[in-house]
């Protein structure tokens, strides 16, 4: 049994993934073990350390503000599960 426990059902809801009750139990135990391992990071004093988001700091990469060709609409829509009149069809949001 792992020391770290978190609410897999709630987090899965945040991530928009439905899970079977059996999966929730399995993930709770497996990810608990992973988080136990991650506890290792608490051994280090990082109070004066800057975080690294990217290995090399590159900032403000801009291009000229000019129009340029984009993907062909038909080619893009061809991948959609449902589309009509040049638009993606989304599941109904409002009643």
């Amino acid at each position, binding site marked *: 049994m792992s020391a770290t426990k*978190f609410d*897999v059902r709630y*987090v*899965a809801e*945040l*991530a*928009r*993934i*439905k*899970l079977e009750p059996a*999966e929730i139990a399995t*993930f709770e135990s*497996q*990810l608990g*073990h*992973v*988080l136990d*391992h*991650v*506890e*290792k*990071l*608490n051994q*280090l004093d*990082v109070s004066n*350390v*800057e*975080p*690294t*988001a*990217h*290995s*090399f700091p*590159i900032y403000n*990469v801009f*291009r000229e503000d000019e129009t340029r060709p984009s*993907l*062909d609409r038909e*080619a*893009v829509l*061809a*991948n*959609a*599960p*449902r589309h009509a009149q040049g638009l*993606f069809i*989304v*599941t*109904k*949001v409002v009643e």
Partner: protein
Amino acid sequence: MALSSLTVHEAQDLLRRKEISPKEIVEDLVRRIEQVDGAVHGYLSFDAGRALKEAEHADVSLPLGGIPISIKDVVSVQGHPCGCASKILQGYVAPFDATVIKKLRAAGAIPFGRTNMDEFAMGSSTENSAFGPSRNPWDPDRTPGGSSGGSSAVVAADEALAALGSDTGGSIRQPAALCGCVGVKPTYGRVSRYGLVAFASSLDQIGPLTKDVRDAAMIMNVISGVDPCDSTTLDDPVPDYTVDLDKGVKNLTLGLPKEYFIKGLDPQVEEAVRAAVARYEKLGANIVDISLPHTEYALSTYYIIAPAEASANLARFDGVRYGFRADGITGLLDHYGKTREEGFGQEVKRRIILGTYALSSGYYDAYYLRAQKVRTLIRRDFDDAFAKVDAILCPTSPTPAFKLGERTGDPLQMYLADVFTLAANMAGICGISIPCGFAEVGGKKLPIGLQILGKALNEATILRVANTYEQSTDWHRAKPDVGGALHSTL
């Protein structure tokens, strides 16, 4: 002669002397695939007709003219499926070429087939593919490694001349090691990721899997360089990586990190790597002991940062714009929940949930921010080391290929397969794995990989160090008996 067994540079010589044609190479590859891929399962699909057509127009005077290169199922090739070995991208056809594919085409190469992988590149064995695992050509009961295991398997089984893979925590180097190929993880920003389906954007790189170091250098020459479509690419000139290959290792200092020779390292792997180090000494390199003190924290850091970034990147798979959408939906939340439940496999769900948790309110500082700070410490370890050495030598994987099914029930055990490779991704430096011997396990010969790590943008150095060793050995010329493998699985 079987053309499929050629290296890229051997094929190029024959093509330019007009002894063979690009079409004959493609035909021979297709023959080989039909003969052995039932046992290896390295390919998810290939389009022989289109490859043959492209072969007819190939200009063999170009740097990779007429050479078919097999592509991991995570890199977009216009008009080909790009499914990341996932059910959620079922039926998806890429509407554009990735920048690396544009560059390969401009160099005359023929993008060929879709190689198998762990779903969304999450895994170390290809067992997370929605379409079944690939098998190691050296022993069909074992994994070819992962996530680029389809690419390493087809190169090792001579079903490809060379392949592209992607490496987020070792996904090129570890399968290369387990299959006896060469695999390069370029410096972060060296190769454009435009058209690579994103897993962990601060770590992902595309790189080659090949039969020898020269081939890797030739492909790096073509795919490297700044790209306006990927703002993380580095605007540094791309040298000719083949120029320094034969310069030897005299006057080079190579570091041995003590943290990589630890309990859990397979004795046969350790023996082979130590023998390779001794060989380097004989070849004139200066070997020194070094320390990368935060190595033991790399795994924990990685398994916060990579899933966190993945949870954000994979939010795009919502069943609206592409791929799979679940049936019998009652509303929008149900649409997302069911589509992602049915479309994603277990490991992908596990990592999205872990990453979502690490980023969620109240836990962000404790997990994600702390991991980013430890990442700084890992990066500094390498800065300190490279102040003293030109390159670092260590094992690529702690063990030779493990058995299919052996680690699937225990994610943490599976994650340990990448324990020696993921620090390079965190630091953004470059690395290569080359064959350095074989382990004997249960009467089978299993390849062992030597990892050479180099400073950022020092690909030329690690390729030179790799080539010097390779040219003094025959490991890279050894071939698995895939015919035998075919019989044992049928």
